[in-house]
């Protein structure tokens, strides 16, 4: 198998005395879709946020596209790289947030353009074309000049996806992208994600949508109290349910007792 696009090597993260996760190792290959499931507080969102360095981590290495990100060794000591370097490394990833986090003072199109013109230094006309292309791809060709406040939650999240994808990141990170949406708006967002998967985007999804994870993932990771408690194909995780804890967790979804 080819070299992994993203690699965690014994990564640990803590807040003071509290260990969020410990000694995590995993690999994500190009065009793979990986879902991370687990109960709240299991560390899955924090894990995702370490990949684009929104969270610092204390030990281990995260290697993206052959490059160690966030830290380097100076005289044998582990040091965080400069903010400028971090900004560059972040641009290799795209993130979609639970709360959309669109910029409320900018139109949908401007939201998508900002990273293109300012991070990628793309000429405005070119950025505008690209923004239009991606907003159309998520079905918002007639909402490009609307402010986020004039859009529904599902539409806002689709703008957020367009904003992330337009940067052509190496990997897309979805942090519970549908958790803040009204149930009837979840489908339109999942459709967009499904299409991205079909087109071969590399993605990590932190999600509570078990059915969706089962359907789109190549690999599913079950996290429990800061550890990878189970990892495998959707079939292995959802049908064979290798551990007791996983059975318990999945049972809460089947009986509708999910958080």
């Amino acid at each position, binding site marked *: 198998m080819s070299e992994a696009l993203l690699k965690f090597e014994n990564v640990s993260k803590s807040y003071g005395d509290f260990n969020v996760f410990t000694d995590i190792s995993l690999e994500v290959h190009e065009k793979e879709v990986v879902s991370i499931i687990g109960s709240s507080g299991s560390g899955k969102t924090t894990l995702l946020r370490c990949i684009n360095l929104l969270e610092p981590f204390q030990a281990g290495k995260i290697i993206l596209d052959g490059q160690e990100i966030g830290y380097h060794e100076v005289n044998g000591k582990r040091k965080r790289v400069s903010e400028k370097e971090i*900004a560059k490394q972040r641009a290799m990833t795209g993130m979609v*947030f639970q709360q959309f*986090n669109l*910029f409320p003072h900018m139109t949908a199109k401007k939201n998508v353009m900002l990273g293109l013109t300012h991070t990628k230094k793309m000429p405005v006309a070119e950025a505008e074309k690209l923004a239009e292309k991606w907003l159309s791809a998520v079905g918002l060709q007639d909402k490009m000049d609307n402010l986020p406040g004039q859009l529904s939650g599902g539409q806002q999240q689709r703008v957020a996806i367009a904003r992330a994808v337009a940067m052509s990141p190496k990997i897309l990170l979805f942090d519970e992208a549908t958790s803040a949406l009204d149930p009837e708006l979840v489908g339109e967002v999942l459709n967009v994600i499904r299409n991205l998967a079909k087109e071969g985007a590399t993605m990590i999804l932190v999600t509570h949508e078990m059915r969706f994870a089962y359907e789109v993932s190549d690999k599913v990771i079950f996290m429990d109290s800061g550890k990878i408690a189970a990892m495998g194909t959707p079939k292995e995780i959802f049908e064979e349910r290798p551990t007791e804890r996983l059975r318990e967790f999945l049972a809460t979804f089947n009986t509708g007792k999910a958080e």
Partner: protein
Amino acid sequence: MIYFQNIYNLRDNVITGFLNTFSIALIAIILGTLIGIIFGMVLTYAKKPVQWPIRIYVDIMRGLPVLVTVFVVYYFLNSVLNMLFGFQMDANTSGAVALTLFSAAQMTELTRGALQSIPAGQIEAGRAIGLTFPQIFVKILLPQAVVQMIPPWINSATEMIKASTLLGMIGIVDLLLVTRQIVAKYNDALVYYVIIGCFYFILNTLIEFFGKRLSKRVNYLEKAAR
């Protein structure tokens, strides 16, 4: 009218007074805003030890009557400057410095409040698309903060106009001092104080009127955005 004739007789003083009041208030507002935005950023984003001196400065300035600040700058700060460097600021400069110190403290709090009310997710979203913090500040945070800052900023601006009337106490020829000169010469204190009172009232009402229109305009954007 004899009263306006009398004012006209002292027109040179009146013009000086008007210019002094206006220019000092304007300097205090502009410099205060610039300093306030920087200090407000520090109070919102800098590490605690860096925040401390600014926190103390802001709390002292907001706790002192403006007149005390004016006296401290004019008498105390000037004598310190004289001792150390052998020079002093004239009354006008001292007044401008004192009002700027006060105004900067107000603007600092105002900026801090506006910046802190912006959800952390905005910064994270900016980071996620690879922007550096200065870019995030200019393109994402400041435009949102400004919308919220305009109404209290207008309020502070009128505060500065009113505070400038204290400057006569250190001998700056401001509008109020000129009024006192006119009264000293022609009596009829009530009439002249009513006239000057009306002038300040109209000036501040105008500022608030245009301020409200301005904030309505940007608020329209804001409403659509929520």
